[in-house]
């Protein structure tokens, strides 16, 4: 059973517009959430995280929102740039481990 779901396999956005990537989780006990970015043939790189005591965390063009009641988090990228084109994974912390979603491919068109 998937504990972390990214229901959109891909997303296409025009350069300069907002990209919104979504993630749902099943366990209300999860308390730390992360987003990673991955280019082909490279390891994922950490983008931004949020603790369950917050509902928003911002870092430059990247903002993560957490809706605990809906068990939903989202990553907003504003403005989107062609270099943001990559696979984005959400992850939840579970003890010593991270559980990852299947990823969303973001394509930013110039």
């Amino acid at each position, binding site marked *: 059973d998937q504990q972390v779901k990214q229901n959109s396999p891909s997303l296409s956005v025009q350069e300069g517009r907002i990209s919104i990537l979504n993630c749902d989780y099943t366990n209300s006990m999860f308390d*730390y959430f*992360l987003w990673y970015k991955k280019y082909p043939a*490279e390891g*994922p790189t950490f983008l931004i995280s949020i603790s369950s005591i917050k509902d928003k965390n911002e870092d430059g063009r990247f903002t993560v929102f957490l809706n605990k009641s809906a068990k939903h988090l989202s990553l907003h990228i504003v403005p989107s740039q062609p270099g943001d084109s990559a696979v984005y*994974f959400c992850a939840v912390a579970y003890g010593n*481990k*991270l559980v*990852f*979603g299947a*990823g969303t491919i973001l394509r930013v068109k110039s």
Partner: protein
Amino acid sequence: SQTIHQWPATLVQPVGSPLSLECTVEGTSNPNLYWYRQAAGRGLQLLFYSVGIGQISSEVPQNLSASRPQDRQFILSSKKLLLSDSGFYLCAWSTGTGFNEQFFGPGTRLTVL
């Protein structure tokens, strides 16, 4: 600063051959270490993790094994590779304290023919 190394970067192996992938971390002590696999078009699947030398936890039953002979060295092995072992293998580390961010290596592309 901390760095993580994986080798080889790419590997093509015949079915039934053995496997050894190595991961080393520099600049930190007593890290948690992880092996993941990303199959084509799929997400990241945790294979093994280790919280200390000789301590290995397996997440999924499979044809692979892991070992941690030194504090900052993590090895992924197989005695006989299967076609289904093909994929992109990633090593990661974390500090092992309350902060859960993991840092990934560059990965190894394994193709089993």
